[in-house]
């Protein structure tokens, strides 16, 4: 049966959230990095066609606000869902992740043929999620400090501005590295190539569910049986 072969993994809310995050972050990376590497010809071309550096900065800040809104609603709705609606906090890092990491490492080194049994999210996915989470919070904070330097220096020492400058740049690079590694894992990884389409369609094939998220699969089957 066709429907039996595919299992729902992501709700529409998650799909839209991921899409928005993708659009907003790519815009921010573009408008941000052309400001940092302004000496290159491409950056100059883009800045001039944006209508000048002042407009580029304005656009960067406006999109930044969108990202902060997206980020805050993500925290807000998930916290409410976890506390009041008994949603599972599946992104929480626990002991199993370390065991899985060591197990997978052994598998990669060729010592065993068994891969780790993952829950809803693998340790790699958790690493990417929390990397992006921390990066966005630091970027947002340092970005706001850089936006209103006079306000912040009234309450904090002046040194926070050069610190915010360093944090904003290097954290952006870290975010970029995490995104690149995510692109590898979701597109070019030999397990999923040509594309892990689950975040676009919302479904994952049963075969891959068993292979990659065995623990969750077993639990889901159990739940289904008890329901029946």
């Amino acid at each position, binding site marked *: 049966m066709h429907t039996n072969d595919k299992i729902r993994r992501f709700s529409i809310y998650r799909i839209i959230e991921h899409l928005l995050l993708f659009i907003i972050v790519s815009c921010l990376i573009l408008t941000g990095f052309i400001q940092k590497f302004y000496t290159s010809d491409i950056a100059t071309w883009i800045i001039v066609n944006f209508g000048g550096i002042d407009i580029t900065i304005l656009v960067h800040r406006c999109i930044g606000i969108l990202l902060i809104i997206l980020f805050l609603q993500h925290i807000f709705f998930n916290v409410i869902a976890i506390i009041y609606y008994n949603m599972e906090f599946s992104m929480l890092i626990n002991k199993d992740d370390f065991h899985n990491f060591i197990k997978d490492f052994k598998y990669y080194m*060729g010592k065993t043929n068994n891969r780790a049994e993952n829950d809803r999210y693998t340790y790699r996915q958790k690493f990417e999620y929390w990397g992006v989470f921390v990066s966005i919070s630091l970027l947002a904070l340092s970005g706001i400090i850089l936006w209103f330097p006079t306000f912040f220096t*009234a309450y904090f020492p*002046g040194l*926070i501005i*050069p610190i915010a400058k*360093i944090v904003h740049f290097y*954290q952006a*690079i870290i975010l970029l*590295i995490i995104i690149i590694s995510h692109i590898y894992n979701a597109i070019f990884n030999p*397990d999923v190539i040509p594309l892990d389409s689950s975040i676009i369609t919302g479904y994952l094939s049963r075969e891959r569910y068993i292979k990659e998220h065995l623990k969750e699969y077993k639990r889901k089957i159990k739940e289904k049986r008890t329901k029946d």
Partner: protein
Amino acid sequence: MKAIFKNLHPEFLRHLKFGVCYIIIFPLFITTPESSYAEKNSTINENCLACHNKRNQFKIFENDEKIEVYVNSEKYLQSAHKNLKCSECHVTFTDKNHPERRYRTYNQYKIMSSHVCNNCHYNILNEKTHKNFINKKEYEDFLICTNCHSPHYTVTGDILYSERENDKKYCLSCHSKGIEIKFLNNEKLSIKFNMQEFKNSVHSEINCTECHFGFSQEYHPIRYFKNRRNLSVANAEVCRRCHFDKYTMYQDSIHSQLLSKGDERVPLCTNCHGYHGIQKFGKERVKITKKCGECHKEVYEVYAKSIHGYALFDEHNKDVPNCIDCHTSHKIEDPLSKKFTLHIPEMCGKCHSNEKIMNKYGLSTQVVSTYLSDFHGKRLSIYLNELPEISNNNNNIKEIATCVNCHGIHNITSTRTLDKKTLKEKLVKACKKCHHNVTLNFTDAWLSHYIPTFQKNPSLFIILWGYKIFIIALVIGILLQVLLSIWRYAISR
């Protein structure tokens, strides 16, 4: 080579092409056996002069202009070209061949014959004297060699040297006496010529009429001027005939803009350089500064008290900038314009990022690079990158703090003598011009041209290097994971 051709006047270039054709075709004529034989036997001059040594023979052009075709052989033999034979310049003419040529005008004939000069004097247009004539349409007459240099009697180098001496004597017969002219407003000006002053000047070799054109032994027009200033304005035009580069620079300057608005105080060439007794300013930096100070008194006094001015006047220090190092000598721009403002760091950087000069005084050479890597400097360099594109609407550019906003413009003083607190208070004042309501804390955001080091800014240094190391570790970790997964995949297949 391309650049030289670009500078040439297009009209002249067309003529030059004809000239080149001449040079190519010309050997075909002379290498025929008869003509080369005739030339070697060198009776040719006499053959020509048999007729051309006689008076009252004319060449008539199509527009009824006529010239005498007489050549004075004695005078010719004293000229620079005495070793040349007639047919070497009059290329198609030999003792056997005397073609009849038709020209529309005398001028056309002169243009055609000027190409012959090019055969030997081919590099002449790159010389300084001639270069000035090439770019401007008004100088078209000068592009014909024979207009200045007599074709048959030309003497080496100078234009008609003997005539010049005569000319000077002629003018001085009146102008060495104490005569005066009167302007329409009853102002008087002595027009006595000071020969001693002139002989010491850089123009001592130049003829009177070369500058006072329109005047000669024959012509002495009477002109009326309202006042002395009007005479100066009219005479300043003279300089451009030779100093065309300086003239165009002056045309762009703020002085020229004010002059066209009718400002009476604006300096002309002669106000700074003088007229008959022109001396080179050369390296006399104090003299130049004082010259500017004659009009710009307030600025001069402020400058004299600054660290640069003090070093210039009291120590005769050659490293410090004087007026023209920043404002340039002729192309003086409006210093309040945004374009000028954007170039200030580059201007200061000329000396302040030069290690040779800065080491003498123990100053940092990183002042400009640290400025450029911070907020203001970065925005400034982006504006500079954009500038050609957005120069049409310069209003888009926000004002940016440059060197002068903190350090002062003409009143620059050393920051070493001040203690930290007063320095901060001074800095806050400068910040407050744009960033309203800032506190003393705000000044700490600027690292005072220092690159963060462990001793100076430990917190910054640790964060910076913490990030760098973490990023390297992250990249290595992710790469390792990627490579391992691919390797494992390849093995298990």
